[in-house]
């Protein structure tokens, strides 16, 4: 890539925002805090016009090409209706599916054919490979704003709050769909991702050494195989506590609600009580910049972190 840091910064200043279904439903605090932090930093978001669901983790099991079509339509809307070439998705599922559609359209003739066929019938431009770059909210802040610039915005900071950074599955796997990751230098790592750690360190957190950064929370079967999900979540919660974390920072609505839901379920069903709090990374960044918890939707999290944040003088 001939792309310099400044080029990228320019490109990410104004992006098409793809919130997705979760952020409009159960994960509203993530949507609220993402928009609030963007506004605070002067980064512009324009919602993808008339977006649709990306297919999440379900549609592919019914028909993988339909999932590819659904995700491709979102990118087609961004390109042709918003007139942008960057889509930012804070949800790992949306982010993953758009990247996967990009990969499949470029590499699988059947995917490309299905996307073209259905797009024609649906009456919109088909998406073509390379028309849009999909980025995560982490890329957006890290590269669109910049770590040094962020440092200057910190007011109060996180005061050494001990944080376990949890990225889940879909931010780095499978490796094929993230050709820009794992290249060394300042690229994101596929095995030990660190972009969230980097941003929260700038915000004044003390990141603990957390071995389960990319472990699975069982999110795909959160409801359909709850006992398995409870076990997987409990592994994550207990490992975070063993590492000394007071808070688990999340960057995915499915992981976040999975942790919250099964933390309660582990207590009710297995009598396993864990006390670590679950907070979106955008909420932590906002707090570090002196924004109010209400503005960041922290009260609306199921995991009640306000008392801890107050006690630590952060909220």
């Amino acid at each position: 890539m001939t792309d310099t840091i400044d080029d990228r910064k320019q490109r990410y200043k104004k992006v098409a925002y793809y919130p997705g279904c979760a952020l409009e439903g159960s994960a509203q605090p993530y949507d609220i805090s993402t928009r609030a932090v963007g506004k605070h930093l002067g980064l512009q978001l324009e919602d993808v016009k008339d977006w649709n669901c990306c297919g999440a983790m379900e549609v592919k099991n019914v028909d993988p090409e339909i999932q590819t079509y659904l995700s491709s339509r979102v990118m087609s809307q961004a390109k042709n209706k918003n007139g942008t070439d960057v889509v930012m998705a804070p949800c790992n599922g949306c982010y993953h599916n758009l990247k996967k559609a990009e990969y499949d359209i470029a590499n699988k003739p059947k995917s490309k054919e299905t996307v073209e066929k259905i797009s024609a019938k649906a009456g919109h431009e088909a998406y073509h490979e390379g028309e849009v770059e999909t980025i995560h909210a982490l890329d957006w802040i890290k590269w669109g704003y910049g770590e040094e610039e962020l440092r200057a915005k910190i007011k109060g900071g996180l005061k050494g709050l001990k944080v376990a950074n949890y990225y889940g599955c879909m931010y780095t796997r499978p490796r094929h769909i993230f050709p820009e990751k794992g290249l060394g230098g300042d690229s994101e790592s596929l095995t030990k991702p660190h972009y969230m750690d980097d941003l929260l360190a700038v915000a004044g957190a003390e990141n603990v050494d957390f071995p389960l950064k990319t472990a699975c929370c069982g999110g795909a079967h959160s409801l359909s195989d709850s006992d398995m999900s409870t076990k997987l979540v409990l592994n994550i919660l207990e490992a975070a506590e063993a590492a000394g974390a007071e808070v688990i920072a999340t960057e995915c609505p499915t992981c976040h609600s999975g942790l919250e839901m099964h933390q309660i379920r582990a207590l009710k069903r297995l009598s396993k009580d864990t006390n670590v709090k679950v907070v979106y990374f955008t909420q932590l960044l906002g707090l570090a910049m002196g924004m109010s918890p209400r503005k960041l939707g922290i009260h609306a999290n199921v995991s009640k972190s306000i008392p801890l944040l107050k006690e630590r003088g952060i909220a």
Partner: protein
Amino acid sequence: MPIHEKSLIRPENLSTHEHLVIDGVDVSGDWSTFIRSRVVTDYNEDLQDEIAAMPGGEYIHRCWQCGSCTNSCTVNAENPDFNPRYWIYLIRMGMESELVRDKDIIWQCVSCNKCTSACPRDVVPEGVMKATAHWLELKGYTEPSNSTVFDEIFTEQVVERGKIEDGEVLMEFLQKTGQPLTQDWLVQMVKQMVAGFSIPTLLKMGWNTVFKPRTSDWSKARDAIREHIEEEEAARHRALGLDPAE
């Protein structure tokens, strides 16, 4: 069949004798345990092709049996019987009855994609697990799993409206799988959720429940998607020699 993993020897195939003399030699003690030989005669020579015809299964032929999938597997760490490498082996050998012994756990793949990232041959084992679960249902070996019920409710909403409303998916799923809404942990979660909601958030949720979120101008996309799904479903039935109308 060679012994690949000792743990795969089932107890009923082990035979232990208290006092055993063979050709005048006393083989009592540790030497008296034998593995009963088995004869497999019900090979399904089309098994690999059938799995390959299911969504996600198309690259199964690439497998070299290195075991990276099972080694990296999230579910295997919780339940050693969940063994993608072994199932891929059985499918490629055509050992249908052996595979069917594990019919009630194959659907439990959580799609974490550790296997797909680790696989040196790009088999996409995660897809093979989904394909196999799908195959078990189509062949009538299992009822649709909870996972399939969830996938279908979710997909139906997306196809119909372009978007989902997650509360509605949850309610419909619990209802269809006969789970009470009053489960202690669900009640506790909803309590904690509602406790911190601001008025605008509550209003937005209420609005979404009454006026379902939908993508505007979706009807043509909906029809094209339905048509595609029906065609593919019929093709899969044909691949398994089943009546496409079923």
